[in-house]
């Protein structure tokens, strides 16, 4: 038993933090909130050069073949930096979907491109508002073509292809389909205004677009989607705790600088206790993330419970930390200039991206019922 990262992993983390401190300062995130670019290309180039997009792709497909323990370290740092890049869509979802369920041909074609940054992928699930369930999927696939409407898709404006959840009109089964996004005749995208414009979102209308099923092997396709979401949940959770810890540090630092009534505001017990609670929530979430990282890395049977636990606690920790960080800053916390709102916005995006807190609470209990 060993519940800790290796020295190499700790080194990787330091390196990642340094890189992002230079390449992704808060001003870059702030400006990404109102420029038109779907993502910051220069930062993305740097990230690709660091090898992060190639991390868990096996060497035979042009990747580095690292473990998920390396990937979670990177995820944490990207969360801490609120990086305005399509990493989660491309790496946690598109790459993972291909690794889980892609055909040899699909993997040979796309994984090397994902690894070297010449392609970005994303994942399209949601149709309309409300919780995902297979019954709510109306996007249809037949005879190699896909038609339907995906209401909110992250990073599709940056992506070359999209792994899409759709229903096979013959078998009536819901499955995963790979759709390239350069089909101007058959695909139209509408950019969306969102809470966090540092990451682009759009709605996608498919009108008989070419699509290939991901064969999935022997796994039942509904299970496959759950598996994909469980795996992504761990990685999202690590981004969330990266951001949560960053907000706690901001709050602490500010509370030591700012004086009121002749004292540092951080000396008032109301704020001390608030920050102690931020720390407690972040620590619980982090420990749950450790366990989930292990479960992901070893494909342990505990993964569904571990992933949902990490996801729920990280979502809660980040919401708490990001909102109370604003509170601790007072008026300046509510300005565009200060960085508090960057995390507050991103917290919401991350919270709903692959299913809300409420959705994952439900999954968590189901997973414990199945494990019992």
């Amino acid at each position, binding site marked *: *038993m*060993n*519940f*800790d*990262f*290796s020295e190499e992993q700790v080194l990787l983390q330091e390196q990642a933090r340094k890189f992002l401190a230079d390449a992704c300062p808060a001003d870059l995130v702030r400006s990404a909130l109102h420029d038109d670019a779907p993502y910051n290309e220069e930062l993305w180039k740097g990230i690709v050069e660091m090898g992060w997009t190639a991390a868990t792709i096996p060497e035979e497909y042009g990747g580095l073949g690292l473990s998920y*323990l390396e990937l979670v370290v990177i995820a944490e740092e990207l969360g801490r930096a609120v990086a305005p890049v399509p990493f989660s869509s491309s790496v946690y979802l598109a790459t993972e979907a291909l690794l889980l369920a892609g055909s040899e041909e699909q993997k040979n074609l796309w994984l090397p491109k994902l690894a070297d940054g010449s392609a970005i992928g994303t994942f399209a699930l949601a149709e309309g508002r409300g919780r995902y369930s297979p019954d709510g999927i109306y996007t249809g696939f037949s005879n190699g073509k896909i038609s339907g409407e995906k209401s909110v898709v992250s990073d599709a404006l940056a992506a070359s292809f999209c792994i899409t959840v759709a229903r096979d009109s013959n078998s009536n089964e819901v499955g995963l389909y790979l759709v390239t996004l350069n089909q101007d005749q058959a695909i139209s995208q509408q950019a969306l205004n969102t809470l966090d414009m540092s990451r682009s979102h759009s709605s996608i209308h498919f009108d008989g677009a070419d699509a290939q099923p991901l064969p999935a092997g022997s796994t039942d396709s509904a299970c496959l989607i759950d598996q994909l979401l469980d795996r992504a949940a761990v990685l999202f959770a690590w981004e969330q705790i990266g951001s949560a810890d960053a907000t*706690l540090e901001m709050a*602490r630092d500010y*509370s*030591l600088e700012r004086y009121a009534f002749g*004292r*540092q505001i*951080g*000396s008032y*017990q109301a*704020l*001390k*206790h608030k*920050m*102690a*609670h931020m*720390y*407690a929530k972040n*620590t*619980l*979430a982090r*420990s*749950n993330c*450790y*366990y989930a*990282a*292990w*479960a992901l*890395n*070893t494909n*342990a049977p505990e993964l569904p419970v571990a992933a*949902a*636990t990490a996801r*729920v*606690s990280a979502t*809660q920790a980040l919401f708490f930390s990001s909102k109370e960080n604003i509170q601790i800053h007072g008026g300046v916390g509510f300005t565009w200039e200060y960085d508090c709102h960057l995390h507050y916005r991103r917290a919401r995006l991350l919270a709903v991206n692959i299913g809300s807190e*409420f959705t*994952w*609470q*439900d999954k*968590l*209990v189901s997973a*414990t*019922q199945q494990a*019992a």
Partner: protein
Amino acid sequence: MDFNDTPEEAAFRQKARNWLAENAIPESELEGDNLIHRHRPWLKRLYEGGWSCISWPKRYGGQGASPIQEVIWNQEQSHYPHLKTHRFSVGQKMVAPTLMEFLEDRPETLERLLPPIASGDETWVQLFSEPAGGSDLAALRTRAERDGDAWLVNGQKIWSSHAVEAKWGFIVTRTDPTVPKHKGLTCLYLDMENPGIEIRPIKQANGESEFNEVFFADVRIPDNQRVGQVGQGWEVAVTMLSHERLAMGGENFGVDYEALRKLAGEVCIDGRPAIENAQVRAKLADFYCVEAGLRATTNRAISALSKGKNPGSETSINNMVIGASTQEIAAFALDLMEQAGIVLDESTQESSFFQQAFLSIPSMRIAGGTDEIQANIVAESVLGLPREPRVDKNVPFNELPGGK
């Protein structure tokens, strides 16, 4: 990172598991009116089998086991919740490590005191809190005055758990009231059968009487029962308190996720098992996250320890979080029973354990340092926030208001 056992760990786990399967005493065979009496035969069996306080050195009654082995043992033992021996934890988890640190150079004393702690033959009482000194422990007033090669102790302790059963007491006294309050303290241990000691049980809010008032009238304690230097009492006491806070996986009165999940499968909402209700599921999930998070946090700390690293500050959150969260679970469990939630049926242990726990849980947020004090500790020693203003820091104790 690897949550699987190494081959050696797996072998150790198997050994522990086999031993427990063969030796665990069934609940029906536990006898006695309090948990100390009920669990004594079990501790004896553990001790004789070499499974009590396994991380202690062999000469003091342990097995010299590694921290990870201790984790494995605790995990295996937790499958027998009726055999949880937390009533012995004052001696085993608080006093013993403190003695080992401060009486390191007196192995013969340790050889006398520690093995009976491991075997459960002798229990201890922590004599720290006083009417005038709880959170502010250093405000305590019980005096110890030098009398030849002994100390004469006069004063009063309060909230002293299991003092009635205890063979030994571990006491913090004031030996010098003319210096600031943290500097004039000294720790001693004493035989609770000493003349001059009077123990009065206090009836608690949950109806039981586990804690007591303890009065001292000219109680003589030999100087060779001093722990640490004269005037070093604060440091010794703080060491013991930090062991108290580390005494991981303490009492939760059986209130945990599994208990709640079971209940939610039994009671109904609108004719369906409550566990199918979305709101119930959300609550359950939240409890699970805290419980799993605390477990994983403890494991991280132990992992660091086993690598010879400082266990870090993470475990300091345990005490801040566990009481409040357990209290929420218990209240929610009672709500799930609706009107029946108030019924206290004392005929069996199981029938109303949520109700009984509900009445006992407030103590979790007070004993061993209140939630607020724990939050101060996290804020100050983990986050580096300013210390509480202390008006009494540099003033001699006997010049403080009420300091006489």
